[in-house]
């Protein structure tokens, strides 16, 4: 069974600084999808970034980028130029490519606080 581990329960960063959130996962599959979701105090889950495992190039979305290390099964999220609005809980998630269930396996989350 696949598992996702986020080892940092809480992190903080100063506004305008850079922060990296860690995520590791375990799977025997060679092809899959990885996601980072953000959950602000409103509780709505918002997609931050997505990575296909068959792509070697790391995904980027504006100030958000990932460091995808397939062999190490690591998928970290880097937030550059942190803004107060980035304060939220961040979840790493895994989706198997087999079937079409849309089953996301989530990590336990990392609470990020951006300080002014």
């Amino acid at each position, binding site marked *: 069974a696949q598992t996702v581990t986020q080892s940092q329960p809480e992190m903080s960063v100063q506004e305008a600084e850079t922060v990296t959130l860690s995520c590791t996962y375990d799977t025997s599959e060679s092809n899959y999808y990885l*996601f980072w979701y953000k959950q602000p105090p*409103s509780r709505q*889950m918002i997609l931050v970034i997505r990575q296909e495992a068959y792509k070697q190039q790391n995904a980027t979305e504006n100030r958000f980028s990932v460091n995808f290390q397939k062999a190490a099964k690591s998928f970290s999220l880097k937030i550059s130029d942190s803004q107060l609005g980035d304060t939220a809980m961040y979840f790493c998630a895994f*989706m198997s490519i087999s079937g*079409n269930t*849309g*089953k996301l396996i*989530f*990590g336990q989350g990392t609470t990020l606080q951006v300080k002014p």
Partner: protein
Amino acid sequence: SQTIHQWPATLVQPVGSPLSLECTVEGTSNPNLYWYRQAAGRGLQLLFYSVGIGQISSEVPQNLSASRPQDRQFILSSKKLLLSDSGFYLCAWSFGGLRSGNTIYFGEGSWLTVV
């Protein structure tokens, strides 16, 4: 563009009472639809998913059921709520079809407190 709406946002129900949470998606046809539940301070767990009208798959045996009476409508129900059903419930959708790995988009969520 596509939108997803979920209601009610907050619900307080006594033990043993019924439950109905509703979700609709606009701007697309034949979406895949999902119900997830989030325990306090934790990641989400998939409860049900549907690839078409009347097609429901359950991931976790429980006191809840789901129905899809229309293409873009997904309902989470219970005949008799338990205290353990309390939590944050999110409806979600993705583009349908056989292609896997479609990004899942979430609704605003519903807080359910069973008292």
